[in-house]
């Protein structure tokens, strides 16, 4: 037995959950457990209370109203990866999920857990940022929406209070014809990415019409490469254009850790950006 003692709560309804998050102190919310349970086992986290979200009804599922795809926070990564709507309308989510842990962790891991844990190298926060997804938080005070751009406050610190929980995430798939790519570099498959890059790319008559590029792993929080996105719009979809975007990625601030220094991450950010854009362009060409 490894975790330090805690009191376990398994609310069934969202009302009960609201009551618990509003009244208890020193709480950890347990989603898929693929990050929290290791922290409990190693006693990095020693909360007084653990509230299990797995028993709460109404927190999972994928709904598509034609324009917006709403994903419940407790939707398992495996369910997301195998969902037909997701595969067709936001396929870069599936491509990124291939890199999330292993199939044996995706059976339990959830999208909401990943967004709230907010590891800088995690794929799902990067994807949410790529789509400018909106996050719906709930709590005893009511609900509020947070755009993904405002979600990471600092290293592994999401924009939520102790009295809130993440309820759902909404994605707005691009309505314009586009292609996508998600690439990542790590020493072994399933390890945390050293740097990952994702992009959405709309190409019309060989010119970049719209672009979104996201980088994960390079710095404390994932970020959009907005400067490069602006630069390449209206430019020919070519190796030269993508090299220029890669230069922008290389210039961004990066973090160092015990294994990888900042310069290496900056170099990788450039390489990953170019690879993602090239892959998206190749997919676009293959479709034409």
């Amino acid at each position: 037995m490894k975790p330090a003692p805690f009191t376990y709560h398994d609310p069934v309804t969202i009302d009960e959950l609201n009551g618990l998050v509003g009244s208890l102190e020193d709480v950890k919310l347990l989603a898929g457990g693929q990050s929290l349970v290791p922290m409990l086992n190693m006693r990095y986290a020693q909360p007084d209370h653990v509230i299990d979200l797995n028993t709460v009804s109404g927190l999972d599922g994928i709904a598509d109203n034609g324009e917006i795809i709403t994903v419940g926070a407790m939707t398992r990564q495996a369910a997301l990866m195998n969902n037909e709507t997701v595969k067709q309308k936001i396929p870069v989510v599936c491509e990124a999920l291939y890199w999330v842990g292993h199939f044996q962790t995706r059976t339990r891991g959830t999208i909401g857990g990943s967004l709230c844990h907010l590891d800088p190298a995690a794929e799902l926060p990067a994807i949410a940022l790529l789509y400018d997804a909106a996050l719906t938080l709930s709590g005893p005070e009511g609900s509020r929406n947070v755009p993904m751009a405002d979600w990471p406050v600092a290293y592994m610190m999401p924009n939520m209070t102790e009295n809130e929980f993440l309820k759902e995430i909404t994605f707005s798939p691009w309505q314009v014809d586009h292609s996508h790519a998600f690439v990542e570099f790590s020493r072994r498959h399933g390890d945390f990415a050293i740097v990952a890059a994702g992009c959405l790319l709309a190409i019309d008559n060989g010119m970049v019409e719209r672009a979104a590029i996201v980088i994960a792993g390079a710095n404390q929080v994932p970020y959009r490469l907005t400067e490069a996105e602006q630069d390449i719009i209206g430019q020919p979809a070519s190796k030269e254009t993508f090299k220029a975007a890669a230069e922008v990625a290389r210039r961004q601030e990066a973090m160092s850790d015990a294994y990888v220094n900042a310069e290496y991450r900056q170099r990788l950010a450039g390489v990953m950006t170019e690879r993602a854009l090239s892959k998206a362009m190749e997919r676009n060409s293959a479709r034409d």
Partner: protein
Amino acid sequence: MQDKRQISLNVNGKEYSGEIETRVHLADFLRVNLGLTGTHLGCEHGVCGACTVWVDGQAVRACLMLAVQANGCDILTIEGLADGEVLHPLQKAFQENHALQCGFCTSGMIMSLAAYIRDNPGASERDIRTAISGNLCRCTGYQPIVAAGLQAAQEMSGTK
């Protein structure tokens, strides 16, 4: 302070009911409370894959799930994979390919691959390698494990 709960679950076809401390994870529960020591514990933070079992038919890390969360679930461990005396095709393939040395990773490897091959008939060598990328083996160099996985995949999909 001991926070306890009553749970009931089915493990390898046998019903179990009892009181457990809520902070016990599923792998410790299987090993300590039920004596099913075929499920191994290596890292206890989800990296080594040795504790992989099936929960309601899905491969999961038993060290990353609390036993209380398995209340009402069907659990399958390595002890329940064979059909009586008849080995699962993957167990047989492991034996024939010498896919283990010390045996520490073996139950996790088999429970992972058995689920993967069931869901991905006709898996390629690359697929097999990706499927066990979350299972660490420090003895074999993986080659015989991959060979066993491929053999079982072919046998189970009827291509061999």
